[in-house]
Protein backbone atom coordinates (compact mmCIF):
# COMPACT_ATOMS: atom_id res chain seq x y z
CA UNK A 1 0.00 0.00 0.00
CA UNK A 2 1.34 3.45 -0.91
CA UNK A 3 2.34 5.84 1.82
CA UNK A 4 0.20 8.94 2.33
CA UNK A 5 1.81 12.22 1.27
CA UNK A 6 3.78 14.28 3.78
CA UNK A 7 6.33 17.07 4.02
CA UNK A 8 9.80 15.68 4.62
CA UNK A 9 12.46 17.27 6.82
CA UNK A 10 15.96 16.02 7.32
CA UNK A 11 17.78 17.99 10.03
CA UNK A 12 21.49 17.29 10.41
CA UNK A 13 21.89 18.43 14.02
CA UNK A 14 19.96 17.87 17.21
CA UNK A 15 19.51 21.62 17.72
CA UNK A 16 17.96 21.94 14.27
CA UNK A 17 15.68 18.97 14.93
CA UNK A 18 14.47 20.43 18.26
CA UNK A 19 13.77 23.74 16.58
CA UNK A 20 11.77 22.08 13.80
CA UNK A 21 9.80 20.00 16.23
CA UNK A 22 8.86 23.05 18.27
CA UNK A 23 7.71 24.84 15.13
CA UNK A 24 5.78 21.88 13.71
CA UNK A 25 4.30 20.62 17.00
CA UNK A 26 1.69 17.88 16.80
CA UNK A 27 1.67 17.93 13.00
CA UNK A 28 5.04 16.18 12.89
CA UNK A 29 6.11 12.57 13.35
CA UNK A 30 9.68 11.61 14.10
CA UNK A 31 11.18 9.03 11.77
CA UNK A 32 14.10 6.79 12.67
CA UNK A 33 14.26 3.30 11.14
CA UNK A 34 10.70 3.47 9.84
CA UNK A 35 9.82 -0.15 10.65
CA UNK A 36 6.92 0.96 12.87
CA UNK A 37 6.07 4.49 11.74
CA UNK A 38 5.89 3.74 8.01
CA UNK A 39 3.74 0.66 8.62
CA UNK A 40 1.31 2.73 10.73
CA UNK A 41 1.22 5.37 8.00
CA UNK A 42 0.55 2.75 5.32
CA UNK A 43 -2.27 1.41 7.50
CA UNK A 44 -3.58 5.01 7.79
CA UNK A 45 -3.37 4.74 11.60
CA UNK A 46 -1.11 7.81 11.56
CA UNK A 47 -1.30 10.62 9.03
CA UNK A 48 1.33 13.20 10.00
CA UNK A 49 1.55 16.35 7.89
CA UNK A 50 5.32 16.38 8.35
CA UNK A 51 7.90 13.70 8.89
CA UNK A 52 11.17 14.68 10.54
CA UNK A 53 13.92 12.13 9.90
CA UNK A 54 16.51 11.81 12.67
CA UNK A 55 18.76 9.50 10.67
CA UNK A 56 21.07 12.25 9.35
CA UNK A 57 22.00 13.41 12.86
CA UNK A 58 25.42 11.84 13.43
CA UNK A 59 25.45 12.19 17.22
CA UNK A 60 22.27 10.13 17.48
CA UNK A 61 23.80 7.20 15.63
CA UNK A 62 26.83 6.67 17.85
CA UNK A 63 27.82 4.82 21.00
CA UNK A 64 29.98 6.54 23.55
CA UNK A 65 31.83 3.96 25.61
CA UNK A 66 34.90 5.98 26.57
CA UNK A 67 34.12 6.80 30.21
CA UNK A 68 32.46 4.94 33.09
CA UNK A 69 29.11 6.27 31.97
CA UNK A 70 28.18 4.86 28.55
CA UNK A 71 25.64 6.12 26.08
CA UNK A 72 23.91 4.58 23.09
CA UNK A 73 22.39 6.97 20.55
CA UNK A 74 18.67 6.45 19.94
CA UNK A 75 19.20 6.04 16.18
CA UNK A 76 21.71 3.19 16.45
CA UNK A 77 20.27 0.31 14.47
CA UNK A 78 19.30 -2.93 16.12
CA UNK A 79 21.96 -4.80 14.12
CA UNK A 80 24.58 -2.30 15.28
CA UNK A 81 23.59 -3.22 18.86
CA UNK A 82 23.53 -6.95 18.16
CA UNK A 83 26.91 -6.98 16.42
CA UNK A 84 28.94 -4.41 18.37
CA UNK A 85 31.87 -6.05 20.18
CA UNK A 86 31.66 -3.39 22.92
CA UNK A 87 27.99 -4.04 23.60
CA UNK A 88 28.41 -7.81 23.45
CA UNK A 89 31.15 -7.56 26.09
CA UNK A 90 29.65 -4.93 28.38
CA UNK A 91 25.90 -5.45 27.96
CA UNK A 92 25.54 -9.00 26.59
CA UNK A 93 21.84 -9.30 27.48
CA UNK A 94 21.13 -6.20 25.37
CA UNK A 95 23.05 -7.65 22.41
CA UNK A 96 21.11 -10.89 22.85
CA UNK A 97 17.75 -9.06 22.91
CA UNK A 98 18.77 -7.17 19.75
CA UNK A 99 19.58 -10.45 18.03
CA UNK A 100 16.02 -11.67 18.75
CA UNK A 101 14.24 -8.64 17.24
CA UNK A 102 12.37 -9.01 13.95
CA UNK A 103 14.45 -10.35 11.08
CA UNK A 104 17.96 -9.52 9.83
CA UNK A 105 16.60 -6.98 7.31
CA UNK A 106 14.34 -5.36 9.92
CA UNK A 107 17.30 -5.18 12.34
CA UNK A 108 19.30 -3.29 9.70
CA UNK A 109 16.58 -0.61 9.64
CA UNK A 110 14.99 -0.52 13.10
CA UNK A 111 16.61 1.50 15.87
CA UNK A 112 17.00 1.11 19.62
CA UNK A 113 15.18 4.42 20.22
CA UNK A 114 12.34 3.44 17.93
CA UNK A 115 11.93 0.14 19.73
CA UNK A 116 11.48 2.08 22.98
CA UNK A 117 9.23 4.95 21.85
CA UNK A 118 6.67 2.70 20.14
CA UNK A 119 6.05 1.54 23.73
CA UNK A 120 4.98 -1.96 22.83
CA UNK A 121 4.68 -3.99 26.04
CA UNK A 122 6.32 -6.83 24.09
CA UNK A 123 9.27 -4.83 22.69
CA UNK A 124 12.59 -6.68 22.76
CA UNK A 125 15.09 -4.05 23.84
CA UNK A 126 13.48 -2.18 26.78
CA UNK A 127 13.55 -5.19 29.19
CA UNK A 128 17.29 -5.63 28.65
CA UNK A 129 17.94 -1.88 28.90
CA UNK A 130 15.92 -1.58 32.10
CA UNK A 131 17.69 -4.63 33.56
CA UNK A 132 20.96 -2.73 33.12
CA UNK A 133 19.41 0.35 34.78
CA UNK A 134 19.33 2.45 31.58
CA UNK A 135 18.12 6.02 31.66
CA UNK A 136 16.53 7.84 28.75
CA UNK A 137 17.78 11.33 27.87
CA UNK A 138 15.10 13.56 26.35
CA UNK A 139 15.72 16.89 24.74
CA UNK A 140 13.52 19.80 23.70
CA UNK A 141 14.68 23.24 22.62
CA UNK A 142 16.77 24.69 25.47
CA UNK A 143 15.86 21.89 27.90
CA UNK A 144 16.94 18.41 28.76
CA UNK A 145 15.79 15.73 31.21
CA UNK A 146 16.92 12.26 32.09
CA UNK A 147 14.61 9.60 33.51
CA UNK A 148 14.81 5.89 34.30
CA UNK A 149 13.64 4.10 31.16
CA UNK A 150 10.80 2.29 32.96
CA UNK A 151 9.26 5.71 33.70
CA UNK A 152 9.04 6.51 29.99
CA UNK A 153 6.09 4.19 29.43
CA UNK A 154 2.45 4.98 30.21
CA UNK A 155 0.59 2.18 28.43
CA UNK A 156 0.49 0.27 25.14
CA UNK A 157 1.82 2.74 22.56
CA UNK A 158 1.88 5.63 25.06
CA UNK A 159 4.92 7.35 26.55
CA UNK A 160 5.66 10.42 28.67
CA UNK A 161 7.60 12.04 25.82
CA UNK A 162 6.34 15.56 25.06
CA UNK A 163 5.27 16.49 21.51
CA UNK A 164 8.33 18.72 21.19
CA UNK A 165 10.74 16.26 22.82
CA UNK A 166 13.25 13.91 21.23
CA UNK A 167 14.63 10.77 22.85
CA UNK A 168 18.33 11.37 22.27
CA UNK A 169 20.13 8.45 23.86
CA UNK A 170 20.23 5.81 26.58
CA UNK A 171 22.65 6.28 29.42
CA UNK A 172 24.12 3.24 31.09
CA UNK A 173 26.74 2.58 33.68
CA UNK A 174 29.44 -0.04 33.46
CA UNK A 175 27.88 -3.04 35.26
CA UNK A 176 29.75 -3.85 38.49
CA UNK A 177 32.29 -6.65 38.54
CA UNK A 178 30.52 -9.93 39.22
CA UNK A 179 27.16 -8.85 37.82
CA UNK A 180 25.28 -10.85 35.21
CA UNK A 181 22.23 -10.29 33.07
CA UNK A 182 20.17 -12.52 30.80
CA UNK A 183 17.40 -11.86 28.29
CA UNK A 184 14.60 -14.33 27.61
CA UNK A 185 11.92 -14.49 24.95
CA UNK A 186 9.15 -16.95 24.22
CA UNK A 187 7.66 -16.82 20.74
CA UNK A 188 5.94 -19.13 18.29
CA UNK A 189 8.90 -18.99 15.92
CA UNK A 190 12.36 -17.50 16.09
CA UNK A 191 12.02 -14.58 13.67
CA UNK A 192 9.49 -11.81 12.95
CA UNK A 193 7.79 -12.78 16.15
CA UNK A 194 6.04 -10.62 18.65
CA UNK A 195 6.83 -12.15 22.05
CA UNK A 196 4.27 -14.22 23.94
CA UNK A 197 6.34 -13.15 26.92
CA UNK A 198 9.86 -11.79 27.31
CA UNK A 199 11.99 -10.28 30.00
CA UNK A 200 15.43 -9.82 31.48
CA UNK A 201 17.10 -10.44 34.82
CA UNK A 202 20.11 -8.66 36.30
CA UNK A 203 21.99 -9.80 39.40
CA UNK A 204 24.94 -8.11 41.07
CA UNK A 205 26.70 -10.73 43.18
CA UNK A 206 29.24 -9.97 45.86
CA UNK A 207 32.27 -11.85 44.60
CA UNK A 208 33.48 -12.81 48.10
CA UNK A 209 30.28 -13.81 49.87
CA UNK A 210 28.28 -14.69 46.74
CA UNK A 211 25.30 -12.76 48.14
CA UNK A 212 22.97 -10.99 45.68
CA UNK A 213 23.54 -7.30 46.36
CA UNK A 214 21.17 -5.96 43.75
CA UNK A 215 18.56 -7.54 41.48
CA UNK A 216 16.43 -6.26 38.64
CA UNK A 217 13.74 -8.44 37.12
CA UNK A 218 11.95 -6.98 34.11
CA UNK A 219 8.94 -8.58 32.45
CA UNK A 220 7.45 -7.92 29.01
CA UNK A 221 4.09 -8.69 27.33
CA UNK A 222 2.40 -9.35 30.68
CA UNK A 223 1.18 -5.85 31.59
CA UNK A 224 0.22 -2.61 29.77
CA UNK A 225 3.91 -1.62 29.81
CA UNK A 226 7.20 -3.38 30.32
CA UNK A 227 7.34 -3.73 34.13
CA UNK A 228 9.84 -4.28 36.88
CA UNK A 229 8.89 -7.12 39.21
CA UNK A 230 9.74 -5.18 42.34
CA UNK A 231 8.67 -7.71 44.96
CA UNK A 232 10.58 -10.42 43.10
CA UNK A 233 13.64 -8.20 43.21
CA UNK A 234 13.12 -7.79 46.97
CA UNK A 235 12.97 -11.56 47.49
CA UNK A 236 16.31 -11.95 45.70
CA UNK A 237 18.22 -9.09 47.28
CA UNK A 238 20.46 -10.00 50.22
CA UNK A 239 20.12 -13.74 49.59
CA UNK A 240 22.50 -16.36 48.31
CA UNK A 241 21.62 -17.86 44.89
CA UNK A 242 19.95 -21.27 45.21
CA UNK A 243 17.44 -23.33 43.25
CA UNK A 244 14.95 -22.82 46.06
CA UNK A 245 15.36 -19.04 45.98
CA UNK A 246 14.96 -18.90 42.21
CA UNK A 247 11.86 -21.10 42.33
CA UNK A 248 10.37 -18.71 44.85
CA UNK A 249 11.39 -15.73 42.67
CA UNK A 250 9.69 -17.32 39.66
CA UNK A 251 6.47 -17.76 41.62
CA UNK A 252 6.62 -14.17 42.85
CA UNK A 253 7.13 -12.89 39.30
CA UNK A 254 4.07 -14.85 38.14
CA UNK A 255 2.03 -13.28 40.95
CA UNK A 256 3.28 -9.83 40.07
CA UNK A 257 2.35 -9.78 36.39
CA UNK A 258 -1.08 -8.95 34.99
CA UNK A 259 -1.23 -10.60 31.57
CA UNK A 260 -4.22 -10.71 29.22
CA UNK A 261 -5.58 -13.36 26.86
CA UNK A 262 -4.85 -12.64 23.23
CA UNK A 263 -4.18 -14.49 20.00
CA UNK A 264 -0.59 -15.20 21.03
CA UNK A 265 -1.41 -16.88 24.32
CA UNK A 266 -3.74 -16.99 27.29
CA UNK A 267 -3.17 -15.08 30.52
CA UNK A 268 -2.79 -18.37 32.42
CA UNK A 269 -0.18 -19.67 29.98
CA UNK A 270 1.73 -16.40 30.19
CA UNK A 271 1.72 -16.47 33.98
CA UNK A 272 2.97 -20.06 34.02
CA UNK A 273 5.70 -19.28 31.51
CA UNK A 274 6.82 -16.20 33.46
CA UNK A 275 7.32 -18.46 36.46
CA UNK A 276 9.30 -21.07 34.49
CA UNK A 277 11.41 -18.63 32.50
CA UNK A 278 12.19 -16.26 35.37
CA UNK A 279 13.48 -19.20 37.42
CA UNK A 280 15.43 -20.60 34.48
CA UNK A 281 16.88 -17.23 33.48
CA UNK A 282 18.12 -16.52 37.01
CA UNK A 283 19.67 -19.98 37.14
CA UNK A 284 21.42 -19.49 33.78
CA UNK A 285 22.66 -16.07 34.80
CA UNK A 286 24.24 -17.35 37.99
CA UNK A 287 25.83 -20.30 36.19
CA UNK A 288 27.36 -17.88 33.70
CA UNK A 289 28.74 -15.76 36.49
CA UNK A 290 30.24 -18.86 38.19
CA UNK A 291 31.95 -19.85 34.95
CA UNK A 292 33.25 -16.34 34.65
CA UNK A 293 34.79 -16.41 38.13
CA UNK A 294 36.15 -19.90 37.60
CA UNK A 295 38.08 -18.51 34.65
CA UNK A 296 39.47 -15.45 36.45
Amino acid sequence: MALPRFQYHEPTSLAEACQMLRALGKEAALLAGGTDLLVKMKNRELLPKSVVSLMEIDEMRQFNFSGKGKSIGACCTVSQIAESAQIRTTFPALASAAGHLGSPAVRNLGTIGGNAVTASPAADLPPALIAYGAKARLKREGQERVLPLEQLFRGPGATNIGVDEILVDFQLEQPPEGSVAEYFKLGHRRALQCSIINGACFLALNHRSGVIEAARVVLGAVAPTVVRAVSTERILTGERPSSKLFLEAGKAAARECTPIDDLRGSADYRRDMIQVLTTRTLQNAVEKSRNHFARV
Partner: protein
Amino acid sequence: MKKTIHLSINRSAYTVDVEPHWTLLDLLRDELGLPGTKRGCDKGDCGTCTVLVDGKPVNACLYLAVRANRKKILTVEGLETGEGLHPLQKSFLKNGAVQCGFCTPGMLMTSVSLLEKNPDPTEEEVRSAISGNLCRCTGYQHIVEAVMSVKEKK
Protein backbone atom coordinates in the same frame (compact mmCIF):
# COMPACT_ATOMS: atom_id res chain seq x y z
CA MET B 1 7.96 18.58 -3.14
CA LYS B 2 10.34 16.34 -5.04
CA LYS B 3 13.92 15.95 -3.95
CA THR B 4 16.83 15.10 -6.21
CA ILE B 5 18.91 12.12 -5.13
CA HIS B 6 22.04 10.56 -6.56
CA LEU B 7 22.53 6.86 -6.11
CA SER B 8 24.03 3.77 -7.63
CA ILE B 9 21.72 0.92 -8.60
CA ASN B 10 23.29 -2.31 -9.80
CA ARG B 11 26.59 -0.52 -10.45
CA SER B 12 25.02 2.24 -12.62
CA ALA B 13 24.78 5.86 -11.48
CA TYR B 14 21.30 7.39 -11.31
CA THR B 15 20.03 10.90 -10.59
CA VAL B 16 16.32 10.92 -9.88
CA ASP B 17 13.69 13.27 -8.49
CA VAL B 18 11.73 11.47 -5.80
CA GLU B 19 8.61 12.27 -3.80
CA PRO B 20 9.13 12.03 -0.01
CA HIS B 21 6.39 9.41 0.31
CA TRP B 22 7.95 7.01 -2.21
CA THR B 23 9.64 3.99 -0.74
CA LEU B 24 12.73 2.54 -2.37
CA LEU B 25 10.43 -0.24 -3.56
CA ASP B 26 8.11 2.28 -5.28
CA LEU B 27 11.13 3.92 -6.90
CA LEU B 28 12.60 0.67 -8.19
CA ARG B 29 9.41 -0.91 -9.47
CA ASP B 30 7.21 1.98 -10.53
CA GLU B 31 9.66 4.68 -11.59
CA LEU B 32 12.79 2.89 -12.77
CA GLY B 33 11.23 -0.22 -14.31
CA LEU B 34 13.06 -2.71 -12.13
CA PRO B 35 10.25 -5.09 -11.09
CA GLY B 36 12.58 -7.93 -10.06
CA THR B 37 12.17 -6.78 -6.47
CA LYS B 38 8.73 -7.99 -5.44
CA ARG B 39 6.00 -6.23 -3.50
CA GLY B 40 4.61 -8.75 -1.02
CA CYS B 41 3.13 -7.69 2.30
CA ASP B 42 4.51 -4.14 1.89
CA LYS B 43 4.94 -3.98 5.70
CA GLY B 44 8.30 -5.59 6.42
CA ASP B 45 6.91 -9.00 7.31
CA CYS B 46 7.61 -11.15 4.26
CA GLY B 47 11.08 -10.17 3.02
CA THR B 48 10.44 -10.54 -0.70
CA CYS B 49 11.34 -6.87 -1.30
CA THR B 50 14.80 -7.35 0.26
CA VAL B 51 17.54 -5.38 -1.54
CA LEU B 52 21.07 -4.57 -0.44
CA VAL B 53 21.78 -0.99 0.63
CA ASP B 54 25.55 -0.52 0.96
CA GLY B 55 25.80 -4.31 1.17
CA LYS B 56 23.21 -4.80 3.91
CA PRO B 57 19.82 -6.43 3.36
CA VAL B 58 16.89 -4.14 4.07
CA ASN B 59 13.14 -4.24 3.35
CA ALA B 60 12.76 -1.84 0.41
CA CYS B 61 9.08 -1.36 1.36
CA LEU B 62 10.11 0.32 4.64
CA TYR B 63 12.96 2.43 3.28
CA LEU B 64 12.12 5.90 2.01
CA ALA B 65 13.57 6.58 -1.44
CA VAL B 66 14.99 9.92 -0.20
CA ARG B 67 17.20 7.96 2.21
CA ALA B 68 18.87 6.20 -0.72
CA ASN B 69 20.75 9.40 -1.58
CA ARG B 70 24.46 8.57 -2.05
CA LYS B 71 23.84 4.87 -1.37
CA LYS B 72 24.76 1.78 -3.38
CA ILE B 73 21.74 -0.38 -4.11
CA LEU B 74 21.91 -3.94 -5.38
CA THR B 75 18.74 -5.68 -6.58
CA VAL B 76 18.16 -9.10 -8.08
CA GLU B 77 18.59 -7.57 -11.56
CA GLY B 78 22.18 -6.75 -10.58
CA LEU B 79 23.20 -10.30 -9.69
CA GLU B 80 23.66 -11.41 -13.30
CA THR B 81 26.88 -10.18 -14.87
CA GLY B 82 28.47 -10.50 -18.34
CA GLU B 83 29.44 -14.02 -17.32
CA GLY B 84 25.83 -15.06 -16.87
CA LEU B 85 23.78 -15.83 -13.79
CA HIS B 86 25.25 -15.42 -10.32
CA PRO B 87 26.51 -18.76 -8.88
CA LEU B 88 23.75 -18.56 -6.26
CA GLN B 89 21.09 -18.14 -8.97
CA LYS B 90 22.48 -21.18 -10.80
CA SER B 91 22.44 -23.12 -7.55
CA PHE B 92 18.80 -22.14 -6.87
CA LEU B 93 17.86 -23.52 -10.31
CA LYS B 94 19.90 -26.69 -9.93
CA ASN B 95 18.57 -27.45 -6.44
CA GLY B 96 14.91 -26.81 -7.25
CA ALA B 97 14.87 -23.87 -4.83
CA VAL B 98 12.43 -21.93 -7.04
CA GLN B 99 8.80 -23.02 -6.91
CA CYS B 100 6.35 -20.17 -7.53
CA GLY B 101 9.36 -17.83 -7.46
CA PHE B 102 7.80 -14.97 -5.58
CA CYS B 103 10.14 -15.15 -2.58
CA THR B 104 13.19 -15.87 -4.74
CA PRO B 105 14.52 -12.30 -5.25
CA GLY B 106 14.48 -11.66 -1.51
CA MET B 107 15.94 -15.08 -0.72
CA LEU B 108 18.74 -14.46 -3.22
CA MET B 109 19.63 -10.99 -1.95
CA THR B 110 19.63 -12.12 1.69
CA SER B 111 21.80 -15.15 0.86
CA VAL B 112 24.22 -13.12 -1.27
CA SER B 113 24.76 -10.79 1.66
CA LEU B 114 25.18 -13.71 4.07
CA LEU B 115 27.86 -15.37 1.90
CA GLU B 116 29.61 -12.04 1.47
CA LYS B 117 29.85 -11.60 5.24
CA ASN B 118 30.27 -15.25 6.15
CA PRO B 119 31.57 -17.39 3.24
CA ASP B 120 31.33 -20.60 5.25
CA PRO B 121 28.00 -20.53 7.13
CA THR B 122 26.56 -23.50 9.00
CA GLU B 123 23.08 -24.70 8.07
CA GLU B 124 21.82 -23.02 11.25
CA GLU B 125 23.36 -19.71 10.14
CA VAL B 126 21.74 -20.00 6.71
CA ARG B 127 18.35 -20.66 8.30
CA SER B 128 18.79 -17.76 10.67
CA ALA B 129 19.86 -15.41 7.84
CA ILE B 130 16.73 -16.20 5.78
CA SER B 131 14.44 -16.18 8.82
CA GLY B 132 12.86 -12.92 7.63
CA ASN B 133 12.14 -14.26 4.14
CA LEU B 134 8.89 -16.17 3.94
CA CYS B 135 8.31 -18.88 1.31
CA ARG B 136 4.65 -19.82 1.19
CA CYS B 137 5.42 -22.83 -1.03
CA THR B 138 7.38 -23.81 2.09
CA GLY B 139 10.35 -24.81 -0.05
CA TYR B 140 12.86 -23.89 2.63
CA GLN B 141 14.77 -27.18 2.52
CA HIS B 142 15.77 -26.74 -1.14
CA ILE B 143 16.61 -23.08 -0.59
CA VAL B 144 18.91 -23.95 2.31
CA GLU B 145 20.49 -26.71 0.22
CA ALA B 146 21.05 -24.28 -2.66
CA VAL B 147 22.88 -21.82 -0.40
CA MET B 148 24.90 -24.58 1.27
CA SER B 149 25.97 -26.08 -2.06
CA VAL B 150 27.32 -22.71 -3.32
CA LYS B 151 29.28 -22.44 -0.11
CA GLU B 152 30.72 -25.92 -0.66
CA LYS B 153 31.96 -24.99 -4.12
CA LYS B 154 33.87 -21.98 -2.82
